[in-house]
C-alpha cells in the first residue's frame, strides 16, 4: 500500500513561525501561529504543539479568531481560501473560496459575517483591502463572491493595517502617508509626512500601525525609530500627533494593550518597550530578547503578550514583562557553513543557528532542542560589522566529542581562526568546552573529521586546511597532577607538494585516511601516518570525498569540480569506474552501502542513489528542486520502514534530508511528514494541569461551593443515574486531604449511600442488604468514634426507607461541610 504512492519531495518542518503575528485564544491558553501551509496551535503554558491545523494548499498568510465565536479560528492562504477551524479539536469547519490570492486577514466584532482581506490586483505591486461577506450555509465548501472594496493601494503586510475601536475606522500606512477610512461616513482622510526629499526627514517612512482599543488614537511606527500617536484625525486640518522616540532603528511592530493603557513596541534592538500612558518618560523595557522583534501581539484576556523574532522564535511574555515561554523553531537566520550534521546521541540535526551558535533541531518534533553558544561573545547587531562565523562542526566518538571551527576575516591577510573541542558532560547533559586552539592552521580550514573507529578511548581528529597541511589531533593528558584532565594536541602534520588540502575522510574502520590535495587524493595509514598511495585523475579539484560503507568499504569515491565522479578500488589502487556527473552534495548512508549524490544542472537538481560497487544508480529522481542544493544528510530511522519496491529500498534504514540555497529543509517521503509528527504530548493539554495559585484557593473554593449548591439543587430533581463526578460526597472525599478526613469506616457508609440509586430507579430488595453489609463492617472497624457511628446506626435502624437514606447523607454532608469550612490552605504551604 505504501509502495503504491510515489516518492515525492516534501517540506520538512522548520517553516517560519514568525511570518505573521501570533494570535492568542480568548482564554490565553493557546497561541496560534502560521507555519508554512499549516497553522500550529501551541499551549502557552507548556510550549507544546497541541494541534496542527492542516488543510491549506499554500502558504497561510493570516489567522484571526472568529469574533463571534472565540472557539473558532479563521485562516487565509495564498491558495485563495478562508478556512474556519475548531481549534480545540483541530477540525476544519468550513472553507470559503474567494478566488484571489489572499495576503492578510482581519476580523472585528462589529462587521457581522464579513471579514477583511488584502488581495492583489492585476498589477503586481498594487494591493487592495476588501471586505468579503461570508455567506451562511451549511455546506462545507462555500463560494464567497460578495467582495466590496475598502481601501486601495495598501501595503501588503498586515502590520500596515489596523482597525480602530469598535470597528469605526480602518487605518493603513504606506511609504509616507497614513490613510484612515471611516466606515460610517464612508470617507477617507489622508495624512502625508514630509518625504525623503529633505535630509532631516530622510527616514520618515511608515513601517507599522496600531489602533487604540478605546480611544481615537492611532500609533504608527517609522523607519527612523519614531512612534507617532495621531489624534483628532477625523479632522483634516486639526489633526495632531505626538512623537515617542526610543528606538534607534526601524520600529518593527506596535501593539496596544487590551485596555489601551500601554503601548508596546519592538525593533532590531531586541528590546520590548512598554510605553505606559503613552508618555515618553514612563516606559519599561524587556531587553535581551535575542533577535529582532518582528511581531508583537496581545492576548484578548490581557494577561499575556508575545513577540515573534527573526530567529524563528515566539516568546510568550507575562503582563509584568517577564518571559514565560519560548517556542523556538528552526533558526534560518544565517548562512549555513557547518552543513547538516547529525548528533549521534539525540539524532538531532545540528547546524548553524543564531550567529555564533550551533542549534540542535529535532526533526521529529519540529522544534529546537537546544542552542550551543560556540563563539561565546556578545553579538553586536550592527550592519556592516564583520562577525565571527562558525564554519565547521563535527561529532566524534558517538557524540562524546564535538569539534567546531570559527573564523573572522576582516581583510585578506588578517584571518582569525579558532578551533574548539567540546566534550559531552553526562551530568549537565550538554557540551562543555575542553580545548581551545587558536590558529590551528595558517589558512582556512576546509574539512574536519573524527576518526570514528571503535577505539573511542583514543579519539583522533583530522583537519585539512588551505595552507597545504592536514593536521592530526589526538587526546592526551593535560598537565594536571591528578592526570584527570585531558586535552587535544597536534600529533602529526602532513602535506603533499604544497597543494591545498581540500577534503579529508576516514575509512569506515578507521584504518585509512584519505586527504584530497586539490586534484590528488592521498591515502594515509592512520596508525603510522605514512602515505600509502595517491590517486590522481586530473579531472579538476576534488570537491567531495567519501569512503564506501559495509561491503563497499574498499571503494573510495571522489567528485570533482569538473563534473566527474570517480570510484577507486583501494585494494587494486586503481580507478574502478567514473561517471560524468556534476555533483554538489555526496553523502554516504551510515546504515547501508548507499551513497546519495545531488547533481546540479541548469534546470534544477537531480538525486542519484547508488552503491559504490556498481556504476549503475539504484534510484534517480530528476528535478528534486529548482534551486541549488547546498547540503544533504542521511538521518537513521528509529523504526526501519519496509519498502519492498526496489527503488525505495534505500529509504528503509535512513531518511535523506537536504537543504537548498533558500534554506528550506526538504526530504523524501511517500506521505506528508507532518502526518507522522504525532506530538507525544498531544494529550498534555494545559487545562487539567492548572497550578494551584492563591487565586485558585479563593476562586476555586468559591466555585466549588457554587457547584455544590447547584448540584444540591439538582439532586432533588435528579431521577436519572447521577454521574460519579456530580456526587458531592465523592468529590469531597477525593478532594479533601487524607489526614484531615474522618476515619474510613465513618466515611464508608456515606460513600456507599451516595452511590445508591434513588427509589424510583432501583429495586428495594437490594438496598437493605447492601447497607446491612456495610453496617456490619462499620461496627467492626470503628471503635474510637463510637458516637458518630452510633448515630449512624441509630438513624439507619429507625427506618430503611429511601428518604431516610437521603436524610442520612445530608446529615453526613453537613458534617463534612463543617470540615470543609476549616481552611486547609495552610497545607499547601507545607
Amino acid at each position, binding site marked *: 500500500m505504501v509502495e503504491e504512492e510515489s516518492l515525492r519531495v516534501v517540506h520538512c518542518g522548520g517553516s517560519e513561525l514568525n511570518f505573521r503575528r501570533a494570535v492568542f485564544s480568548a482564554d490565553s491558553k493557546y497561541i496560534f501561529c502560521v507555519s508554512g501551509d499549516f497553522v500550529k496551535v501551541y499551549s502557552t503554558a507548556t510550549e507544546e504543539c497541541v494541534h496542527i491545523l492542516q488543510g491549506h494548499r499554500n502558504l497561510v498568510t493570516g489567522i484571526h479568531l472568529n469574533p463571534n465565536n472565540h472557539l473558532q479560528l479563521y485562516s487565509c492562504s495564498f491558495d485563495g481560501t478562508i478556512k474556519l477551524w475548531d481549534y480545540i479539536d483541530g477540525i476544519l469547519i468550513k472553507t470559503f473560496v474567494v478566488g484571489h490570492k489572499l495576503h492578510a486577514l482581519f476580523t472585528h466584532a462589529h462587521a457581522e459575517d464579513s471579514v477583511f482581506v488584502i488581495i492583489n490586483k492585476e498589477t503586481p505591486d498594487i494591493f487592495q483591502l476588501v471586505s468579503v461577506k461570508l455567506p451562511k450555509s451549511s455546506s462545507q465548501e462555500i463560494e464567497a463572491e460578495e467582495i466590496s472594496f475598502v481601501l486601495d493601494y495598501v501595503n501588503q503586510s498586515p502590520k500596515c493595517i489596523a482597525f480602530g475601536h469598535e470597528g469605526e475606522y480602518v487605518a493603513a500606512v504606506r511609504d509616507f502617508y497614513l490613510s484612515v477610512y471611516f466606515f460610517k461616513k464612508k470617507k477617507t482622510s489622508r495624512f502625508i509626512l514630509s518625504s525623503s526629499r529633505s535630509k532631516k526627514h530622510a527616514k520618515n517612512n511608515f513601517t507599522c500601525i496600531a489602533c487604540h482599543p478605546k480611544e*481615537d488614537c492611532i500609533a504608527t511606527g517609522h523607519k527612523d525609530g519614531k512612534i507617532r500617536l495621531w489624534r*483628532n484625525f477625523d479632522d483634516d486640518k*486639526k489633526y*495632531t*500627533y*505626538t*512623537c515617542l522616540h526610543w528606538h534607534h532603528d526601524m520600529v518593527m511592530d506596535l501593539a496596544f494593550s487590551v485596555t489601551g493603557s500601554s503601548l508596546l513596541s519592538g525593533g532590531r534592538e531586541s528590546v520590548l518597550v512598554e510605553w505606559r500612558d503613552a*508618555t515618553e518618560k514612563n516606559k519599561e523595557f524587556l531587553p535581551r530578547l535575542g533577535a529582532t522583534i518582528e511581531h508583537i501581539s496581545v492576548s484578548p484576556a490581557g494577561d499575556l503578550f508575545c513577540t515573534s523574532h527573526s530567529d524563528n522564535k515566539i516568546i510568550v511574555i507575562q503582563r509584568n514583562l517577564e518571559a514565560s515561554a519560548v517556542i523556538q523553531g528552526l533558526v534560518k537566520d544565517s548562512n549555513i557553513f557547518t552543513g547538516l550534521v547529525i548528533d549521534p546521541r539525540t539524532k538531532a540535526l545540528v547546524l548553524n543557528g543564531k550567529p555564533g551558535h550551533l542549534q540542535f533541531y529535532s526533526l521529529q518534533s519540529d522544534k529546537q532542542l537546544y542552542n550551543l553558544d560556540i563563539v561565546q561573545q556578545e553579538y553586536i547587531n550592527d550592519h556592516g560589522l564583520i562577525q565571527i562565523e562558525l564554519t565547521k562542526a563535527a561529532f566524534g566518538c558517538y557524540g562524546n566529542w564535538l569539534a567546531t571551527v570559527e573564523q573572522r576575516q576582516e581583510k585578506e591577510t588578517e584571518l582569525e581562526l579558532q578551533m574548539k573541542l567540546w566534550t559531552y558532560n553526562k551530568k549537565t547533559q550538554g557540551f562543555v568546552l575542553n580545548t581551545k586552539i587558536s590558529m590551528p592552521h595558517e589558512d582556512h580550514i576546509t574539512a574536519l573529521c573524527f576518526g570514528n573507529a571503535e577505539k573511542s578511548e583514543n579519539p583522533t581528529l583530522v583537519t585539512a586546511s588551505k595552507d597545504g597541511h592536514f593536521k592530526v589531533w589526538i587526546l592526551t593528558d593535560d598537565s594536571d597532577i591528578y592526570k584527570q584532565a585531558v586535552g587535544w594536541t597536534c600529533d602529526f602534520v602532513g602535506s603533499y607538494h604544497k597543494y591545498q588540502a581540500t577534503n579529508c575522510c576516514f575509512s569506515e574502520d578507521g584504518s585509512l585516511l584519505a586527504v584530497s590535495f586539490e586534484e590528488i587524493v592521498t591515502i594515509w595509514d592512520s596508525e603510522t601516518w605514512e602515505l600509502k598511495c595517491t590517486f590522481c585523475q586530473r579531472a579538476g579539484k576534488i570537491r567531495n570525498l567519501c569512503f564506501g560503507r559495509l561491503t563497499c568499504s574498499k571503494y573510495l569515491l571522489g567528485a570533482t569540480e569538473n563534473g566527474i565522479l570517480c570510484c577507486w578500488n583501494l585494494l587494486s589502487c586503481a580507478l574502478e569506474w567514473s561517471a560524468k556527473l556534476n555533483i554538489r552534495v555526496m553523502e554516504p548512508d551510515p546504515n547501508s552501502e548507499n551513497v546519495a549524490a545531488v547533481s546540479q544542472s541548469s534546470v534544477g537538481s537531480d538525486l542519484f542513489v547508488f552503491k559504490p560497487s556498481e556504476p549503475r544508480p539504484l534510484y534517480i529522481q530528476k528535478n528534486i528542486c529548482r534551486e541549488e542544493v547546498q547540503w544533504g544528510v542521511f538521518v537513521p530511522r528509529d523504526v526501519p520502514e519496509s519498502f519492498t519496491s526496489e527503488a525505495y529500498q534505500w529509504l528503509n534504514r535512513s531518511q535523506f534530508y537536504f537543504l537548498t540555497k533558500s534554506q528550506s529543509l526538504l526530504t523524501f517521503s511517500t506521505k506528508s511528514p507532518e502526518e507522522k509528527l504525532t506530538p507525544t504530548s498531544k494529550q498534555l493539554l494545559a487545562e487539567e494541569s492548572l497550578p494551584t495559585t492563591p487565586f485558585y484557593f479563593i476562586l476555586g473554593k468559591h466555585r466549588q461551593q457554587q457547584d455544590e449548591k447547584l448540584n444540591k439543587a439538582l439532586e432533588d430533581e435528579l431521577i436519572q443515574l447521577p454521574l460519579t463526578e456530580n456526587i458531592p460526597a465523592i468529590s469531597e472525599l477525593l478532594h479533601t486531604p487524607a489526614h484531615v478526613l474522618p476515619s474510613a469506616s465513618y466515611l464508608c457508609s456515606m460513600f456507599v449511600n451516595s452511590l445508591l440509586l434513588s427509589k424510583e430507579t432501583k429495586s428495594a430488595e437490594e438496598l437493605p442488604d447492601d447497607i446491612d453489609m456495610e453496617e456490619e463492617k462499620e461496627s467492626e472497624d470503628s471503635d474510637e468514634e463510637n458516637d458518630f457511628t452510633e448515630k449512624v446506626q441509630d438513624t439507619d435502624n429507625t427506618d430503611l426507607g429511601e428518604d431516610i437514606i437521603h436524610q442520612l447523607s445530608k446529615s453526613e454532608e453537613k458534617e463534612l461541610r463543617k470540615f470543609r469550612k476549616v481552611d486547609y490552605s495552610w497545607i499547601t504551604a507545607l
Partner: protein
Amino acid sequence: MGEFNVHRVRFFNYVPSGIRCVAYNNQSNRLAVSRTDGTVEIYNLSANYFQEKFFPGHESRATEALCWAKGQRLFSAGLNGEIIEYDLQALNIKYAMDAFGGPIWSMAASPSGSQLLIGCEDGSVKLFQIIPDKIQFERNFDRQKSRILSLSWHPSGTHIAAGSIDYISVFDVKSGSAIHKMLVDRQYMNVSKRKCIIWGVAFLSDGTVISVDSAGKVQFWDSATGTLVKNHLIANADVQSIAVSDQEDSFVVGTAEGTIFHFQLVSVTSSSSEKQWVRTKPFQHHTHDVRTVAHSPTALISGGTDTHLVIRPLMEKVEVKNYDAALRKITFPHRRLISCSKKRQLLLFQFSHHLDLWRLGSTVATGKHGDTLPLSKDADHLLHLKTKGPENIICSCISPCGSWIAYSTASRFFLYRLNYEHDSISLQRVSKMPAFLRSALQILFSEDSTKLFVASNQGSLHVIRLLEGSFKHLHTFQPQSGTVESMCLLAVSPDGNWLAASGTSAGVHVYNVKRLKLHCTVPAYNFPVTALAIAPNTNNLVIAHSDQQIFEYSIPDKQYTEWSRTVQKQGFHHLWLQRDTPITHISFHPKRPMYILVHDAYMFCIIDKSLPLPNDKTLLYNPLPPTNESDVIRRRTAHAFKISKIYKPLLFMDLLDERTLVAVERPLDDIIAQLPPPIKKKKFGT
C-alpha cells in the same frame, strides 16, 4: 553690481540679554518682551513682527513679571519690589510704585483688566485696583509661608491660583482667604529633591488648575476638591513656564532643557464628548532655559536665556499657508547699534552700559574676486567709554568726521569731543548741556558734522550747532499739535538742508533745516518705518517699511518718484516680501546715483534702479552671474535686485567710499559661546 573691498568686522562682541517675560496682547496683536537687563521691547505681530518700541533697561530693575491690563496698559514688576507702568506713547516710564512686599515674583491682571494681582517674596498676594493714570492698593490676601512664584486668575475673576514652593493655593477673591492648598510631590525620578518650585500655574474656566514645577512635571488639579487629576512627567529638568490659549483648547510649557511642549485638548473618541489633555508636539528651538512662553491665537511664542524670541505658528490655526506660517526667530534688535565715521574709518559700537570705538584695519594688498586680503594694519580699539549710573544706553552716534560722540540714557544726554593727535586720542566731555536735552531717542550728526539733531522723547526735535568744543541750540521742531508720538528714526540729507524724522506709526515728516520749518509730510503707511535715508544730489527720501516695501519720495517735488510708482505698480518679488527681518539701514553709492544699498540681518542688496524689476517668474536670488554665458543672456536675466547673502547675521553695512564696504557680523555661535552652559543632556536623551 561692481566689486568692493569689504571690511568684514567680527569684533563687535555684542550679546543680547536673555528674555525673562513675554506678554501677548490680543487686542492690538502686540507682544511685550522683557529682558534680564530690564529692557522692555514691544513687537507688532501684525507688522511683520517688527520691534516697534523699546524701553531701556536699568541695572536695579530686574523684571520678573509683565502683563497687559485695561486694554493697552503695560505693567511690569520686578525684584526691586516696584510695579512699573510704561507710557507707550512717550516711550518712558509713567510711574514706579513700591508694593511693600519685598521682591515681586509674579503678577497677573484680572480677566476684566481692572485689577492687578502681585505675588511677593514675603508670601503675600496683593490686589491693586487699576484706576486711570494710577494703580491703587486694595487689599492683601491670606499670607502664605513662602514666596508666590506664579499667579493665575480664574476666567470668571472669582478665584485665583497661586504657585508657591511645594504647594499651590487657591484663593477666593471676594474673601481673600485660601480655600485649598494642594501639595506637590517633591519626588523627582525617585529621588527626593529638597524643594519643588511651582514655576507656573494656569486656571481654566472648568476649575482645572495646571501647574508646572521644578521636578519636570505638568500636573492637572481639580480646584473644587483640591486633588491631583493627572500628572505628565515631561522633562528631566525644570518646567519653567506655561501659557494657555484663550479658547482653552491648547497650552504650551517651556522647559529648562530648551524644549517647549504643546498640549492639546482632544476628544477621546469622535462620538463622545469626553475630552482629554494630550501632549502633542515638542519643539526644540532653544538651546537654553525657556523662561517664558505665550500663546497667541495662531502661534506659540517662547523666549529664554539663549536670547532668541521664537514664534512658532500653529499650522492648523493658520488659514493660508503663506510666509506668516513660517517659524520666526528674532535675536537682534531691530535698531541700529553701530555708527560709522566714514572719514576716519571709525566704528562706534553701542552696548548696554558702554561704547566701544574701533579704527578699521587697512591693507595694501590687492587680490582677485573672493580673496581674503592680509591686513597690513590691524583693527585698533581706540576707546572704551563707560556710562555713569545704572541706566542703559538708548542711542549713540559718532559724527562723520569722527570728532564728536553723543549718547543718551533715559535721564541724561552726553556729548564728547574727540581729539586725535597722531596715534593717541583724547576725550573731552562737553559740559553744561541744556536742561531740555535730558533724554534722546535718536541722535544724528549732519554730513559736515556741524549740526546735531536730537529726537527727544517728548516728540520734539532739537537742532544744535556744534562749534569747536562748544555748541549752540538753534531750534526745536515741536510735534504736530496734539500728538505726543516720539520720533525714533532720523535722516539728514548730505547737503544738510533736509531732515526727515519718523515716529512709530504716523508718517515721515520732512523739515527744512535752513528755514527751520516743516517742509512736508510723506503720506502715512500701514506698516511702521524701519529705515530712512535721503539720497545725495537728488534729495530723494528712501523709506523702508516693515512689510519690506521700499518707497522713494522726492523731497523737492513733494511726491513719490517715477521709479517708486513703477515699483508700486508692478509690485515686489514675492520672495522679497517674504523675508522676515526688517531692513535696518539704507545708504547710497556716491558715484552711482541709481544705486540704493539696503541690508537686513541676512542679506545685503544693491537695488539698481536702471534695471528692470524682477517679476515672480524670475529668480530673485542669483548668487553670481555665470561667467561663461554671453553678455546677452546675462543682461536678459539681470534685474534690479542684486542680493548677497555672504554676510550673516549682518548687523551693519555701509559704504566707506566708492570701493570699500564695511560689514559688521555677529555669528550666533559666538553669542552662544558667551552664554552660560546649557543643561547637559545625553546624546540619546536617556
